[in-house]
């Protein structure tokens, strides 16, 4: 008996020590606390939190199409999070992923609609065009910072709005605009990245899918190659930051620009390069969104939030490529699962924004988490001693 409590204690202590060591631990604890806050809010509003979480979980995993929707939803925010994390690691705060996403979308819609090429050329061309345009868009903020000392937070807020109005201007250009609507024409089928799009609609395809429940259900969604590209981009970002001279230099500027400058790194150029890469990533997200989901761009009344959600995903994922993939999936699962508690229980879906806000809030305060854990440890210690 005595041995068991002793083992318990060391296990708990080990866990606490492990969790407080790195960002991963803080993220996990913050996520846990976020769920508790969500439960409390739901309970205060008169809903059963366990029931609500049950609906959310089964709403995400109980059918192949649900899982597919979660993956689809995670794709753009994983990539915008990579964009933001890349900037973070190089000492820049890219609030402009939102606008760079829009620029990527505009470019993809233009190149996807006006250019006619076979698929194996068209898809890479659209993606590269979206990344280039958004990279240059991000580069404006980098240039303004390097050359004129304009803080990137402010310049990117401005650029977000300019991008939004530019989007609305381009959508309405005659010849591109779909008659009498607030949308553009759809991109060519050769630029479409939905998995088996042609085959899915063919008679044989339909026949086969009817006979296979799992694939039939999963492929009812616009499941596309975007997620695979997101993973590839995550690997490229990880590799660039950790294994290349470029990544080393950019990070060095992020840690201490004066030291980097003394070490012979061109600080101005590094800032510009960082913002170009960060912008290109967000642009890829926008481009893939057009190629895989929306197929066209529409007039925007407000920001769609892909960039802002990406900030939360990057923070929850501790700015690491692997962490971002998981936190992107978590964010998307919350969003998709959360949308189901409204029809099922009448509980406001927006509780998930409160949860995400709470998670980010706790991530901002490692000191609070340390403090809580320290008290738990003390209590356990007192209990064990007594």
């Amino acid at each position, binding site marked *: 008996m005595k041995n068991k409590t002793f083992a318990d204690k060391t296990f708990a202590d080990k866990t606490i020590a492990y969790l407080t060591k790195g960002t991963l631990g803080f993220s996990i604890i913050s996520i846990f606390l976020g769920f508790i806050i969500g439960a409390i809010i739901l309970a205060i*509003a008169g809903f059963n939190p366990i029931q609500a979480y049950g609906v959310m979980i089964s709403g995400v995993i109980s059918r192949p199409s649900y899982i597919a929707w979660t993956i689809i939803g995670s794709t753009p925010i994983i990539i915008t999070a990579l964009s933001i994390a890349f900037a973070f690691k190089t000492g820049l705060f890219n609030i402009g992923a939102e606008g760079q996403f829009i620029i990527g979308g505009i470019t993809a819609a233009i190149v996807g609609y006006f250019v006619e090429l076979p698929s194996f050329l068209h898809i890479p061309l659209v993606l590269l065009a979206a990344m280039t345009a958004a990279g240059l868009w991000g580069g404006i903020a980098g240039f303004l910072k390097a050359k004129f000392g304009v803080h990137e937070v*402010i310049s990117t*807020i*401005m*650029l977000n*709005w300019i991008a939004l109005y530019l989007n609305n*201007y381009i959508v309405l250009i005659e010849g591109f605009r779909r008659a009498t609507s607030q949308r553009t024409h759809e991109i060519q089928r050769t630029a479409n990245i939905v998995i088996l799009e042609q085959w899915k609609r063919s008679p044989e395809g339909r026949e086969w899918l009817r006979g296979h429940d799992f694939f039939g259900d999963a492929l009812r969604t616009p499941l596309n190659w975007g997620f695979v590209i997101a993973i590839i981009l995550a690997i490229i970002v990880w590799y660039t930051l950790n294994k290349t001279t470029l990544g080393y230099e950019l990070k060095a500027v992020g840690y201490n620009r004066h030291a980097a400058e003394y070490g012979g790194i061109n600080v101005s150029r590094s800032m510009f390069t960082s913002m170009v890469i960060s912008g290109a990533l967000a642009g890829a997200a926008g481009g893939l969104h057009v190629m895989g989901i929306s197929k066209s761009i529409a007039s925007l009344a407000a920001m769609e939030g892909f960039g*802002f959600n990406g900030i939360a995903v990057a923070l929850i994922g501790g700015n690491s490529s692997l962490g971002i993939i998981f936190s992107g999936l978590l964010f998307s699962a919350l969003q998709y699962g959360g949308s189901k508690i409204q029809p099922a229980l*009448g509980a406001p879906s927006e509780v998930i924004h409160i949860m995400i806000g709470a998670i980010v809030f706790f991530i901002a305060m490692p000191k609070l988490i340390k403090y809580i854990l320290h008290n738990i440890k003390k209590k356990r210690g007192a209990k064990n001693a007594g």
Partner: protein
Amino acid sequence: MLDSLGFIIGTTLMYSTPLIYAALGGVITENSGVTNIGLEGMMTIGALIGATVGFYSGNPWLGFLAAGLAGGVLALFHAIASVTFEADQVVSGIAINFLGPGLALFLSRLFFEGATMTKAIPLDSKMPRPLHGIFPRNSFLDLVFNQYATVYMAFLLVFVLWYLLYRTKLGLRIRAVGEHPRAADTLGVNIYRIRYLCVILSGVFAGFGGASMSLAIVSNFRPTLVSGHGFIALAAMIFGKWKPQGAMWACLLFGVSNGLVVYLGRADAPFQISVQILSMLPYVLTLIVLMGFVGRASAPAAVGVPYEKGER
């Protein structure tokens, strides 16, 4: 011609108002050394609470005060994180920007039978227009001065805040805390108390800003109402070099473009110009201005840095 000018000035004043409140919120918190990127979230919760209390009580002033309170409560969280627990202030602000709109929509659904749009406030319980009916209808003076009370109060608040920051002992302390907290601490100023006060006030102002939209410009809350105004206010605050009067001028710049957009969107506008291109203009202008003469103006030295007593 004069009427058109009156119309543009009038709409400019109306649209600048929410920005001015929120930007003043930014001014006071940043002068005490705490960044508040969460103005957007605080405006959103203010807009919802203002519209809700205004609708159910029938009293716009009660709604306005409740909105300030709601913004202040949300700001309290930001203060706890960034002052007491030395959080990364930008990250905490981002959290607020999820919490504010999330809470606003959540509460809206609870208060208004599952709708994310609150019910419209009846015309006579909207914010009053103190100078209504004094000037001939649609005359120049009427178009310019027949404004909601919130508009006048915003400009009054600019003056009050300027006076507070530059003409009172408390203002001197606030600026000292923002510039050099250690020196202020040595002289016996309570850094934590000053920062709590300023952060909470910034939330109150942002809440007022939200309510000045939902109780005056329109008569309800809807999910896209605030959409980005908090960020523009943040930019206006920096554009205005962290000073109340500067922030006011920057907000008026954003407001005038809004006024022009509305004016040129009217059927009787003298010429047609792409509304989208026009809408871009203030943002492009801000970038250009920032490149030129705002470049050297700098933020309060200690902004964004948590203060820890006894640290060297």
